[in-house]
């Protein structure tokens, strides 16, 4: 079965509203969608460079996000500084192993998965690899879908800070790691939004004759 691509047929779909337009020849200036006025692009502009930029920033911030505490608990008996991993351990030891797994998956596995997946997608599309294209397309959809759930820990800490406010008995404060962690979530989401999944399928341009 022959697949016809929009680029091959000279069509230009609008990313914003889905309207399919006929493309002008390559020399013509970029135009806007007649229906929704969004600029029309064959591929997301500068997709690879922007995705790498967001991804590298996220990877750099991932270190303080895990090394610094995200939550500081002060009770009459003890003072505790919890990193993300520390919080998981507390849940696990406390018997809520199901919640420990949820937080572990959402806050540690998901950001790592997203970063690794985006690196794989970037490297393979740069080399125009045809290795398992459907699998890579599915991987991208997974990354897109799962993106928001890493925000889980941010909300948990915010609620605990607001609720456990018994000054004399117990108090929870947010730690500096939380800002880094929030930044990691935002940056990985931006990275996956910048990546154009059509690059997975694009064939390399034939070399021009000298």
């Amino acid at each position, binding site marked *: *079965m022959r*697949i016809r691509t929009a680029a091959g047929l000279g069509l230009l779909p609008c990313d914003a509203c889905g309207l399919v337009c006929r493309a002008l020849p390559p020399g013509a200036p970029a135009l806007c969608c007649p229906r929704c006025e969004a600029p029309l692009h064959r591929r997301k502009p500068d997709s690879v460079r922007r995705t790498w930029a967001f991804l590298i920033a996220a990877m750099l911030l991932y270190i303080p996000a895990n090394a610094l505490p995200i939550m500081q608990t002060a009770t009459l008996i003890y003072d505790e500084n919890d990193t993300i991993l520390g919080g998981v351990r507390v849940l696990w030891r406390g018997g809520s192993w199901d919640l420990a797994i949820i937080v572990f998956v959402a806050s540690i596995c998901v950001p790592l998965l997203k970063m690794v997946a985006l690196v794989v997608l970037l490297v393979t599309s740069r080399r125009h690899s045809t290795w398992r294209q459907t699998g890579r*397309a599915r991987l991208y959809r997974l990354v897109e879908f799962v993106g928001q759930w890493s925000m889980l820990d941010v909300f948990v800490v*915010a609620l605990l800070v607001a609720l456990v406010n018994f000054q004399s008995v117990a108090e929870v404060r947010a730690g500096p790691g939380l800002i880094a962690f929030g930044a990691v979530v935002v940056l990985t989401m931006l990275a996956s939004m910048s990546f154009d*999944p059509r690059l997975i*399928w694009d064939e390399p341009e034939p070399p021009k004759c000298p």
Partner: protein
Amino acid sequence: MMRASQLVVCEHCDAVHERRDLGPRGRALCVRCGAELYRGGHRDLHTMLALTLASLIVFVIANVYPIITLELQGVASRSTLWGAIRATWDTGVGPVAVLAALTVFFFPLAQIVLFGYVLAELLRGRAPRGFIDIMHALRLMRPWSMVEVFMLGTLVSVVKIAGLASVTPQIGIFAFGVLTILLTTINSFDLRLLWEAREHLAAGGAAAGASA
């Protein structure tokens, strides 16, 4: 430029497909990469407007009433969403409080209000003002509206505190649960239908103007 209607281009791999009618539960998948192209059986605009109004009411309830109440040694503490945001801000992690406020309060509220406005105007046969900008805003806010994640977050924090103090769920938490379901439905509505509805309106108006 010429418009090619009846053609659908896969956003994820550029493959071109012909649009077909689907049954109420039908889903069209791209033949090359498996991404979802469109669905059949969309809810009509009246139902969506009703859901949107319901969401607005539930949103107000969820934010006015506290989410849970804690009791420790006779002292009670309770918080609404906004209280949690303020407390996070006061702790010194300002950017995080801003992020939480945007993703759980401002963006969902904006989505409800703007979506409701567009639906109401289209159903009355009028062109909504600022339609194009509103549609772009609705599309851009979708990935950043995180009420479902917040819902799971409240459940996790309830369990975390349960060991420390006695916890009583309040109206707020149930309202957020309902809001999660409503917002998920609103956010899965295919915005392209609104673009097409607007086009029909313009076409109808032009015909009426020509015959008048």
